[in-house]
């Protein structure tokens, strides 16, 4: 049991770094945006793992499980907001990438710098 708990945090760390790696190393702008969404997905996993309670169910109190144990609702609320922030940033980023493709004809970062020099 204890090992799986740590495994959740390790997956968070690995996903975080995969996302950061993709954002930094990849030159294609759309690949950077996908890397960014991976990076944010890792943070969602961290928050939701925090909220889990041993033997608790989802925090929806029906009369059947009125006095049962419930997992923590707060991280879930925060992550609901963070997911929509992530999709908004990606939508804006994609809008910018489309405009860059129309102005520069390419979406590879090194080619853009070439044209700008």
């Amino acid at each position, binding site marked *: 049991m*204890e090992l799986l708990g740590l495994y959740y945090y390790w997956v968070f760390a690995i996903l975080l770094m995969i996302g950061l790696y993709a954002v930094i190393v990849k030159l294609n702008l759309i690949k950077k945006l996908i890397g960014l969404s991976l990076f944010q997905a890792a943070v969602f996993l961290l928050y939701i793992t925090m909220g889990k309670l*041993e033997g608790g169910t989802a925090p929806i109190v029906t009369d059947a499980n009125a006095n049962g144990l419930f997992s923590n609702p707060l991280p879930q609320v925060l992550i609901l907001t963070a997911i929509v922030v992530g999709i908004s940033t990606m939508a804006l980023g994609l809008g910018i990438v489309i405009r860059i493709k129309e102005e520069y004809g390419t979406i590879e970062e090194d080619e853009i710098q070439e044209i700008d020099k």
Partner: protein
Amino acid sequence: MTVIFGFFLLTLLLITAVAIVQSQNLFVSVMLSGMFSLLLAVNFFLLDAADVALTEAAVGAGISTVLLLSALAITAKHEKAPSSSRVGALIIVIIATLVLIYATLGNPQFADPNAPVHQHVAPWYLDKTAEAIDIPNVVTAVLGSFRGYDTLGEVFVVFTAGIGVLFLLGTQPGPFAQSNPFKLTDPKGLRHYLIPRVVGRMLIPFILLFGLYVQFHGEYGPGGGFQAGALIAAAIILFALLEGENSALKVIPRSVLIGLIAGGALLYGVVGLFGIFLGSNFLDYSVLSSNPVKGQQMGLLIIEAGVGITVTGVLLSIFHAFAARGKF
């Protein structure tokens, strides 16, 4: 026993993530990222986060895949061969991962009841919801009422993204549009699209109905404004895919979309202002009606409707902006 499934699904998650970053073909990494957010949604469901799983599925797997694909249709489909300097960055990333993993050893036990996170604020929400707002779904209660100001900010983040994309791409077709001979509704496409169009036309009403169900079911089960907005937008995007983007525009023209975007955000703000006019603080719904609990429930319903309207309007106008730009 669900622990073992969590273990498996997390490993699948990691494999998908590595495949997304490694694949040269952008189209493949977009589809894999759709699968990634799908696996993530199942993981959230295992961690008792039903609302978040629904949002991640509706927004992550549904809308972001469609947006990425419509952006890909205009830009490049293949990624250029990678430049040389990758080994150095790889080493740095691996070292950083090991440091982070070592640092996570200090975290509190996974899901143990006496971790600080379960002590301070969470119990208050659980019993205060039953007493003050009296709705089953505590997550919607915290999202709408206890931390309603966060969600107001959230609606305005979506609002900004919507007007940002409209500002960037406008509504008229871009330079690439003329060069693409195939409009979405060309007859040639009909031959092998007959079955999907018939099935689609039969299912779209039910998807819309399900979207409305998720919207107004937010207090009793997983659901709410964001998820419903994403589902309804996905239904109309399906209609646009099958029947052609111009007929989808005839269904909901652009002026209505702008009205939806502004209307939903204003609806949320006005409900908050009512809190002030009726003598209490901003976003306090208990003053909305004589009985405070009824007031809270009424307030929650209205702001969830406002959130749903804005999210639908924004996602649809973003899709139309992308589609008009390059004839996806």
